């Protein structure tokens, strides 16, 4: 997994770099428009994390140039501008996804992995973990050969944890991933608690070979047994 991080804020660049290294990715970084353009035109990446406001130009222009060259690198726009126009423009220009700052690291990892998987295997890849096989395209889960029936939200939670295997997932990050940004009182963790209770029970009953452990009162972590 080869990733280019285009972000002008050094601290945030470092954070993303560290987080991706933990996922065994090869990470390159660019802090301004020109160096990003150089790298994007010379090398190929599985995914480019692209900030919009850059010294020397706009990330959207970089995206345009990349698509003009006919390159198919995955692009995840990360921007402080949540403006709808930017989001639409970005997606219309061929970006694969759009993430608004501030984001949770676990959210960034999940989205990056999802883009890389779509690019690498045309979305047909399956993910094996424990005794489970996930089919992201069909949103299906097979447990030791038998389908494991999960509702929409349960599937989303599971795939989120699978992407963040071994990483502590903050309850808030989970709530926002599953319910979206714009819900008031997302810190009312009953929502997550009841959903997690059901999911954990299903995983246990299906002998999934993985466990989603509560970490203190803070969040959850998925581990293989």
């Amino acid at each position, binding site marked *: 997994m080869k990733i280019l991080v285009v972000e002008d804020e050094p601290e945030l660049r470092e954070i993303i770099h560290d987080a991706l290294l933990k996922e065994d990715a090869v990470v390159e970084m660019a802090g301004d428009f020109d160096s990003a353009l150089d790298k994007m035109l010379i090398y190929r990446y599985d995914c480019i994390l692209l900030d919009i406001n850059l010294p020397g130009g706009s990330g959207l222009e970089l995206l345009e140039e990349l698509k003009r060259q006919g390159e198919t690198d995955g692009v995840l726009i990360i921007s402080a501008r949540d403006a709808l126009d930017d989001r639409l423009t970005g997606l219309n220009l061929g970006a694969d996804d759009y993430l608004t700052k501030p984001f949770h690291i676990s959210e960034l990892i999940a989205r990056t992995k999802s883009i890389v998987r779509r690019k690498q295997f045309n979305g047909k890849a399956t993910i094996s973990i424990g005794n489970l096989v996930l089919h992201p395209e069909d949103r299906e889960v097979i447990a030791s050969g038998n389908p494991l029936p999960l509702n929409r939200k349960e599937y989303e939670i599971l795939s989120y944890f699978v992407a963040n295997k071994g990483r502590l997932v903050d309850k808030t990050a989970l709530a926002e991933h599953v319910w979206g940004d714009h819900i008031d009182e997302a*810190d009312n963790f009953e929502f997550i608690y009841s959903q997690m209770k059901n999911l954990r029970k299903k995983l246990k009953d299906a002998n999934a070979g993985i466990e989603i452990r509560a970490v203190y009162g803070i969040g959850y972590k998925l581990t293989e047994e």
Partner: protein
Amino acid sequence: MKLLTRTSLYLSGALLLALTVWAVIFYVNMLDEVHDSIDDGLANSKLLVIREAEKDSLVLQQRTFDEGNYAIKRIGKTAALKHVDTYVDTLMYMEEEEDLEPVRMLTTTFWAKDGHYYQMKIISSMVEEDDLIEDLFYSLLWLYLIFTVSILLINAFLLRRIWKPFYTLLDRLRAFRLGSNERIEPEATSITEFRMLNEAVQEVLESNTKAFNSQKQLIENASHEWQTPLAIALNKLQLFADKHTLTEEQMEELYQVVRALERLTRLNKSLLLLSKIENRQFSEASAVNFNELCRELLEDFAALTEHKNIHVLFHENATLTRQFHHDLASILLTNLLKNAITHNVIGGELNVTIETNRIIVENTGQPEALDGEKIFSRFYKGDSGSRSTGLGLAIVRSICEAAGIQVAYEFNGKHRIEITFPAHM
């Protein structure tokens, strides 16, 4: 009272007064003139009769008015010499009219050739004052009516024409929204006052719009600028927690900081969302089926309603499909449902009803009514201990206001929020 009505009233009042005063003066003058003219006629007749009497002494025998307009009787010398000519108005029986009619009578004396003194009364018929007054009154009434109607018509026509720039400006002002980038273009007019009004209004609006826009820009920029430092702080703490082996106590303290930062983030995002809704930045509309959306969301919330043992009833009395921004529709319903579930009680009820142009969300909860105005305002929290941002229902109201949807809260043992879509959407 409309300007037109008010001016018409004033004008017709003033006209009534002016015409009345004029009528009195006119009447007095005219009557005076009539008297004058008759008196001259009588004086003339007197000379004629005296001249006639010189030729024909029979004239002096005419004692009554039966045969003419004069009567003569002999009087003594002293009485005759004392006498002065008098003109009086009097009444006299007229056979033709079979009634007493007003006449003007001249009483005079003269000396005839036969050496005697005579007194002569000459009459001339007069205008009948009551008839005159009546005629005058009707004429004036007609005049007044014609004037009034013309004034009304002219007023209606002229005023509408002259005041058109004013009404145009008024209409545009009514439709004006601070923050929408449209400008008010007043109608060109040659009337100085209106031109001044237009200019003044435009100046005020422009300076207001400028101030509003720079405020908005400041808030938006500030909110956006916060995002990056917030991201750094949050992510650093999370990575720190991930990297190091911390005790439960240390983790908890660390995450108290994280929660506070997350809350700040959420507040910031909600405020940005609110300002975007109010700026009408969500314009892309597509057909949204609210039944489907509602069903989906209730399914998503099923784990929670089951957890709280809430009995959910979903009535679909009709299909509600409207042109709407899909994300906004979703935010609207999610906030409504989440509100109804969060503030519900264990073992409570949640009724969602969809009708042709209404969505009603009804839930059990605290057994007393809430302030129907306050619950939709920003940062209102039912219980102060809640960690919510207090923006959920404010967002609901903003979305509804932007889309012309009515929102109403009611308490009838249950808390009931009803949103009514306009019929034509």
